[in-house]
C-alpha cells in the first residue's frame, strides 16, 4: 500500500529533521516487517539458496585475494617494530589476535558492503522502478518475502562464514611471510598463533559477522525497496546502500568492541 498521501505538507520542526525521523520510523517498520515475514512459513528455500550462492560463492575470489594480502602485508608491516625488541616470535600471536578480533570481520564486511550491498540495492531498485515488484504483488506473490527476506537471510548466514574464511586465508598469508623469513613450520605457526585466542574472541567475531551481514542485507534491501525517480533512483540506492552500510558497520564495531571488552 502507498504511503505517499500520508506525508504532511508542512514540516513539524524542519524539513530535514522531519525527514530524518520519518526515515528512522520507516527503517524500523521495515525491520519489523522483515522479522514478521521471516518467522512466517514457508521459507523461500530455493531463492534463499540462490542468494547464498550469489552472496557467498560469488564473493569468494575477492575475499580470498583481500584476506591473503591483508595477512601478508600486516605481517610484513609488523615485523620491523617487533624485531627492534627481538620479539619476532610473537608475530603469529599478534597477527592472529588482530585478524580474529578486528581485521577479518571488518575487511570482509566492508568488501561485502561494497560488492553485495550495492548489488542488492541496485537490483531491488531496478525491479521497483520497472514495476517488477508490483508485478509480483498483483500475481498474488509476496515480494517482500521472496526478495527481501531471502536476501537478508543470505547475507546474515553467509557473511559470518566468509569472516571465518577470511581469517583463515589471512593467517595463511601471514604464515607465508613468516615461513619465508623465519622458516617457522606450519604446525608451530598455528600453535603459536592460536594460543592466545579465546572462545570469547571467536564468539565476538562470529557475532560481528552476523550483525554486519544483517546490516548489509537490510540496508541494501531497504534502499532498493523505497527507490523512486527512475534510473537515477537505482544509482542512488546502490550508492546509499554502500555508504550507509559502511557507516553502520564502523558504528557497530565500536559498540561491539566496548561490550566484548567488558567481558574480558
Amino acid at each position, binding site marked *: 500500500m502507498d504511503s505517499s498521501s500520508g506525508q504532511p505538507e508542512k514540516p513539524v520542526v524542519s524539513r530535514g529533521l522531519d525527514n530524518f525521523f520519518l526515515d528512522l520510523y520507516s527503517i524500523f517498520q521495515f525491520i519489523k516487517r522483515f522479522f514478521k515475514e521471516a518467522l512466517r512459513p514457508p521459507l523461500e528455500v530455493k531463492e534463499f539458496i540462490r542468494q547464498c550462492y550469489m552472496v557467498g560463492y560469488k564473493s569468494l575470489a575477492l575475499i580470498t585475494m583481500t584476506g591473503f594480502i591483508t595477512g601478508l602485508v600486516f605481517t610484513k608491516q609488523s615485523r620491523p617494530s617487533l624485531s627492534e625488541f627481538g620479539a619476532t616470535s610473537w608475530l603469529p600471536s599478534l597477527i592472529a589476535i588482530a585478524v580474529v578480533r578486528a581485521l577479518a570481520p571488518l575487511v570482509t564486511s566492508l568488501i561485502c558492503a561494497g560488492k553485495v550491498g550495492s548489488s542488492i540495492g541496485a537490483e531491488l531498485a531496478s525491479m521497483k522502478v520497472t*514495476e517488477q515488484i508490483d508485478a509480483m504483488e498483483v500475481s498474488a506473490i509476496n515480494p517482500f518475502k521472496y526478495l527481501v527476506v531471502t536476501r537478508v537471510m543470505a547475507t546474515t548466514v553467509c557473511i559470518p562464514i566468509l569472516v571465518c574464511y577470511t581469517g583463515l586465508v589471512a593467517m595463511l598469508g601471514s604464515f607465508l611471510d613468516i615461513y619465508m623469513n623465519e622458516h617457522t613450520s606450519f604446525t608451530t605457526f598455528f600453535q603459536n598463533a592460536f594460543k592466545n585466542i579465546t572462545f570469547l574472541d571467536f564468539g565476538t567475531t562470529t557475532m560481528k559477522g552476523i550483525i554486519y551481514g544483517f546490516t548489509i542485507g537490510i540496508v541494501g534491501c531497504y534502499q532498493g525497496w523505497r527507490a523512486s525517480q527512475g534510473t537515477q533512483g537505482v544509482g542512488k540506492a546502490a550508492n546509499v546502500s554502500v555508504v550507509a552500510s559502511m557507516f553502520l558497520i564502523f558504528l557497530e564495531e565500536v559498540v561491539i568492541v566496548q561490550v566484548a571488552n567488558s567481558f574480558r
Partner: protein
Amino acid sequence: MKNFKPNIDWQDKVIKVHDLFKSFGSNHVLRGISLDVHKGENIVVLGRSGTGKSVLIKIMVGLLSPDSGGVNVLGQEVATLSNLELRELRLKVGFCFQNGALYDSMTVGENLEFPLKRNTPGITRAEVKRMVETVLDAVGLSKTVNQMPSELSGGQRKRIGIARTLILRPDIMLYDEPTAGLDPITCTEINNLINEVQHRFNTTSIIITHDLACAKAVGDTIVVMKEGRFIKRGPFNEVFQSDDELIREFYDYNFIQ
C-alpha cells in the same frame, strides 16, 4: 474493429467504482469518480497523461489505497480486504503493466511458470509446460520460451506480460497503456490480441490508454477522463460526437495527424 460480438452481461456489474478520491500530497489525482464495468465488457479509459488513469486501476488491485470512496471488484470492497483475501482476489484480476514488467533474471518460460507454480500448489511439471505453451501460443510467441526479456522487442515484452497474466486464468484484465511506445503495426497486433483475449477467455477488461486507434479497436465502452473526473461515457462513435474541447483535441490529434 472486432470481428465478433462481445458476450456482455449488462445485468452483472463485476467492478463498481463509487465516489473515488485519491491525492498525492497537494496533487488531487482522482476527484470523486464512479464507474460500473459489466461482465464481458471492454472499457477503455481515455485521458491525457497524469489524469489518474493508472492510479484508478492500481486502486482496483490494492497497489494503492483510496483516500475516500471505494472500489468493489467481484463483490468485494478492495480497501477492506485482508492480505489473504486480497491475494485471492488478485488471482482473479490480471494486471498488464505498461512495459511488461517482466522479471529480468528469468527466461520467458520462467516468467510464465513463476506465478503459476506459486499459486497452484501440487501442479505437475507436465501441466506447467502445457499451460506455458498454451498462453505463449495465444500471444503468438511460442518460440521465445528460452529467451531472456532483454532479448525481446517492446511489443514482444508486452505480449509476454499479457501471457503471464493470462496463465492464472483471470476473470478481469487490466491493461496499463498496452500500445504506448509501439509502432502502428505492433499496436494493431496488440489490439487484436486484447480482442482475442476477450473472445477466447471471456474476460472483462479495463484498458488505460491515450491511443484513440486502440480505443476504437478494443473498446465496447469509452470513458474519457479529465482532471480526475469522467467527463463522457459511451460507445466510441457517441463519445467522439461530443463538442468537449479535450475530446475534439484527442480526436483531431489522433486521426487528422
